[in-house]
């Protein structure tokens, strides 16, 4: 039932380009972080490749990758 719309993809491209713009203004390193959230304390965790998978505030080892901001269309029926 779900469908991805072209318009949504366009919007995301716009967002990505704006993000890339922000990143280049600070550091390129920023772009290589991936955002997770801690499975125990819900704190946001940014990890680089090779880093130990562990929450910085509570030490919990289960992290969840966040859902993308991509738009999904549903019929309300």
């Amino acid at each position, binding site marked *: 039932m*779900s469908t991805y719309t072209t318009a949504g993809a366009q919007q995301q491209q716009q967002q990505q380009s704006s993000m890339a713009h922000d990143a280049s203004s600070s550091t390129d390193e920023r772009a290589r972080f991936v955002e997770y959230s801690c499975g125990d304390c819900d704190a946001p965790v940014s990890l680089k490749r090779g880093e130990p998978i562990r929450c910085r505030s509570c030490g919990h080892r289960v992290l969840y990758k*966040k859902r993308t901001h*991509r*738009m*999904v269309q*549903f019929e*309300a*029926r």
Partner: protein
Amino acid sequence: MRVPSQAELQERKRVQIGIETTSNAQSTDFPGHWPGENHEWNLDYIKENLNVKFHTSTPFDSEFSLIGIDTSVANAFRRILLAEIPTLAIETVFIYQNTSVMQDEVLAHRLGLIPLQASRRGLNWMKWYQKPTEEDEGSGAPSDYNCAILRLNVKCEWQEGGLQRAARGETDPDKLYVNHSIYARDLQWQAIGKQAEMFADGPIQAVNPDILIMKLRPGQEIELLMHAMKGIGQDHAKFSPVATASYRLLPTIDIMKPIIGADAKKFARCFPKGVIRLDSVTSEEASELDCKENEVKAVVANPMRDTVSRECLRHAEFKDKVKLGRVRDHFIFRIESTGQWESEDLFLESVKLLKVKCQRMRRGLDAMMN
């Protein structure tokens, strides 16, 4: 030409109800059915005999009797009320973020079922949404006159000091989190184009602001956009303007032989309260009924309150003393609106829609003949 007596006509339109049977349910008022009688279509006769009586009239719940009309027509009104009067409902949901425990499609379905209300003027102004066709790519784009935008953006978070309270054993979500429940009141309508003007005297919002859509916990977030469009109940039940629209036939109770004393009390208990009244027998009646003065006798007070449970037919002492039935052309309509229209306007709209159906068919027929 033979003209049947009033009593005979009454008897003809009585549906008889036995212990396990109903009979005489079919209408017979057609030419050629009763020898020598005229049952030709006669608008003046209908005007004379059609009668409307109101029982309850609140904006969203009304009850009235429609008397002197055939079942086929009354049923057409009921069917139109359920399935053919257009209302506005959420039709498409664009989900940008949903990190709650509720699946996207379940959430979209729940949103669709929320009854909406808005200014009558604006709703009448809004048009059907035509889906784009494959041949014409530019067609069917949602526009301000056929599509309303609603947004829902909620993020649940810990309250100030909520985490500590939770550690101490507090479990009340009101004391721990902010935005832990999403209600229908959280839907935000965004007026576009001419909508701001047309809906000036009533914004698009949920009829009941307290409908719980979903619950969230800290870190969970909902971000979505909805399109509300006009549709009809035939397409999906969410478009039906009524919670229920139904009719029942007026029940009748005929006491053929007097029911007196303890039997009368038992008889009254066979019916809902208020249907049977217990009167004292007067001295004149006493000799006639062969009983003592001041004994009670059962009298039908208000058959309309009867549910026709047929309980009285199960007892041997009432055998041949009572006849149950219903009046075939007395429809007690009950219309409960979901809030977008007023109940009585809904009924009028259903009659108008039946008329429009006929008009369109007649125009089509005319076009075919020429």
